[in-house]
């Protein structure tokens, strides 16, 4: 294994991890995709997860959210085991999720997409800053979400995850299918939100610029395992982890 296990906690040695994944396995049906994943994310930390397609990044996020059945391994969030918890319980514990492809409700208005995250919960109001972070969504509140552009839909998907006030959001390829200028704008917005709220992010991303803009640490995944973790600064090295794991 390249990199070192000590790197995993090196970024925030003073803190207990907010999310801790140990020896996690998982997959679809009989196909096993995750082969013992170990990863931590500290409170307020942004960790990027990189790797080639099909290495298990999305599967790992889906497994963390309870969208795939538990096999072996443990997931703890803020000290509590969530390995076998139902998805809605995991969300209510403070974990948010922005899925790959955004998966907004096309036929619902922007406002209803956001409102869904509050229904059936004790919290009944949106975070006051939400529409400051995403002013565009204020203008489009009544618009059918399916008519928004890809970048606007991504903003909606992120805003939707922010509504219940999570402590950590799992973001799956937020730059996918979005024009570069909007990717940069989304990155800046996310950086501002992390700065303002202390939110943690576990970011699956192929866009190196976005990773560099947001992350403090990068974990590389190959064949269902974390094979290296490093500070984001190491990505700049010509023969560094990007060359080793992504041939970039």
């Amino acid at each position, binding site marked *: 294994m390249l990199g070192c296990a000590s790197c995993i906690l090196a970024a925030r040695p003073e803190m207990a991890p907010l999310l801790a994944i140990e020896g996690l396995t998982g997959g679809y049906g009989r196909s096993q995709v995750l082969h013992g994943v170990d990863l931590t994310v500290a409170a307020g930390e942004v960790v990027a997860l990189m790797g080639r397609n099909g290495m298990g990044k999305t599967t790992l996020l889906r497994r963390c959210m309870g969208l795939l059945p538990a096999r072996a391994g443990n997931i703890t969030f803020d000290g509590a085991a969530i390995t076998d918890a139902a998805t*809605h319980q995991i969300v209510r514990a403070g974990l948010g*999720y922005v899925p790959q492809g955004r998966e*907004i409700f096309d*036929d619902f208005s922007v406002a209803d997409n956001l409102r869904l*995250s509050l229904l059936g919960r004790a919290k009944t109001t949106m975070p006051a800053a939400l529409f400051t972070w995403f002013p565009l969504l204020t203008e489009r509140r009544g618009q059918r979400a399916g008519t928004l552009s890809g970048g606007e839909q991504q903003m909606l998907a992120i805003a939707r995850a922010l509504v219940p006030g999570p402590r950590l959001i799992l973001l799956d390829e937020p730059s996918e299918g979005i024009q570069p200028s909007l990717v940069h704008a989304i990155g800046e917005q996310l950086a501002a939100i992390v700065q303002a709220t202390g939110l943690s992010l576990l970011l699956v991303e192929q866009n190196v610029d976005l990773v560099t803009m947001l992350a403090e640490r990068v974990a590389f995944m190959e064949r269902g395992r974390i094979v290296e973790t490093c500070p984001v600064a190491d990505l700049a090295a010509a023969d560094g982890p990007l060359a080793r794991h992504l041939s970039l």
Partner: protein
Amino acid sequence: MAELAIIVLNGTTTILTLILVALGLVVVFGMMGVINMAHGELFMLGAYVAVVAEALGLPFWLAVLAAPLLVGLAGFAIELVLIRHVYRRALDTILATWGLSIAIKQAVALSFGPGAFSVTPPIDATLVIGGFAYPVYRLVLTGLALAIIGATFWLFLRTDFGLVARAVIARPETAAAQGIDTRKVMRTSFVLGTGLAGLAGALVAPLISVDPQMGLGYLVPAFLSILIGGAGALAGVLVGGGLVGGVDSLLTLALSPVAAQIAVFVLAVVVIRLRPRGILGGRGER
């Protein structure tokens, strides 16, 4: 003129009765995607609630209140034991609910016998229109059907529960990732759909012959109404029910019930050939 008024009233009652029967199926099949072959038997159970109430000397309107509750309770048990294991597995759902429909029919035949029952209409009065006597209960049923259809649309399109239910039905995983307990919502929606079938059964019972085999006769036109109107769009049942009920009542009067049934099937084939997702399929709310 009076004859035309009677034809229009009869046609309206037929259409609204069909929509009422199909309404529960719209929720369970059209929106949730559960091909419930036992929907006709749940409708039949609702009618038997009215039969039992009459045999016990209880008021008909008590049966109308009890039927959705009792059949909804049966729906709760069916969802818990059977349906929740086969969500999004179409073939398994068909087989499981087909078996269930046979079991319900046989259980009712064993309990009440294979013969038919009739239920006395709760309102005996008739309205005289140009020399023709028209049963007031049919008019009341028309009004109640409109109110129930309106209430169901309001529930699914205008309330928080409806928003959550439509979200869970459209994208269950995304809804769960927004903190929604999808199991609870699916179960509630299924119970609502079965309760509506029971309510329709009790309300329609005074107009029909109640027997263990009656379900199939209502299941087929209900499915056709949803397929023609567009599964997935709640409003599709209005279009589909209107077309199926309208063609059926007009051609039954003009030609024969057999010709009417053939015409309905031809209509279904043509619509599905031209618009595979139904007339309103692919747009509108879901």
